[in-house]
């Protein structure tokens, strides 16, 4: 009898641990959801900075403003424009980071400290549809965020590489724009290599969110049918 009671107590503790794990995972899902909610503002910040860069570049090259400077100074002045998208991406990331840090986590810990019945209460009162929505939109927002960030990195790399190639060909051949559109492809390759690890991590996380979605759907279905 006592042995059976001890066994059951152990199982109860395991259930509490498992529910705590579930709640921690849902806290983390909330962070992905925040990325989704912030995505529009993040994209607006990054895209605006890129548009400003393009407009400024067109203005500087077509207005003759740079003619007053020698070629070396012109290079450096054009290169300074990269600061615009750089600060756009940095402030966008900072904005999202701050929102993620503001997510309240672990609020369930006190309630769960009351053992098995409280774990059961957590499971019974879980807003499943809200959690499913959070997982779906979180995954989508997270991938869109990664896409915009990747595009912004590409544009920054393109401008930086363009500058580096032009200054090299200017020093060697005393000419610029020698390599034509090569910097577009080179910058794409560099960005891909730089973000490869992050892209693969992001892909795995989105897959994990998908898996979690199905695990929770199954649990919800099972719990619906439980009764004394």
């Amino acid at each position: 009898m006592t042995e059976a009671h001890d066994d059951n107590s152990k199982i109860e503790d395991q259930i509490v641990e498992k529910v705590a794990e579930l709640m921690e995972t849902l806290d983390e899902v909330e962070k992905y959801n925040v990325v989704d909610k912030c995505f529009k503002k993040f994209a607006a910040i990054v895209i605006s900075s890129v548009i400003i860069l393009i407009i400024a570049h067109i203005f500087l090259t077509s207005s003759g403003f740079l003619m007053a400077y020698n070629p070396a100074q012109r290079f450096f002045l054009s290169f300074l424009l990269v600061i615009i998208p750089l600060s756009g991406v940095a402030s966008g990331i900072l904005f999202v980071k701050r929102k993620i840090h503001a997510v309240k986590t672990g609020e369930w810990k006190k309630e769960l400290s009351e053992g098995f019945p409280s774990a059961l209460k957590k499971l019974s009162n879980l807003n499943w549809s809200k959690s499913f929505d959070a997982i779906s939109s979180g995954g989508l927002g997270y991938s869109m965020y990664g896409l915009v960030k990747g595009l912004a990195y590409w544009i920054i790399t393109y401008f930086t590489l363009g500058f580096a190639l032009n200054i090299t060909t200017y020093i060697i051949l005393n000419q610029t724009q020698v390599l034509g559109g090569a910097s577009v492809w080179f910058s794409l390759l560099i960005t891909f290599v730089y973000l490869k690890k992050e892209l693969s991590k992001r892909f795995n996380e989105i897959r994990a969110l998908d898996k979690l979605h199905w695990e929770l759907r199954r649990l919800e279905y099972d719990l619906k049918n439980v009764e004394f």
Partner: protein
Amino acid sequence: MTSKMSSSKPDLYVVARIIKSLKEKNNVNKTSLATSTGLAYDKLIKYLDWMSKKGFIIFDDNCSVVLTEKGSEAYDELVRWIMKHVGQLKFPRLRAKT
């Protein structure tokens, strides 16, 4: 709650809380049981009524609540059932990165 009780599907965690409390102390009077479970007295009475009909508890001569073998087994079965379904969940290690 009343509608739930009448449709014979009470809140599982409330029943679990009552049984757990009864398991810890063999027989308890209703007032102490309401205190130890944190339930409002009238809510507890409705649950006890439902549990008594199910044969999970009986009332002794002093009107104290006593957990039956059936009640204890039902609780243990619920614990095992939940473990069977919750225990097989595998949660991914997530970490939202910017």
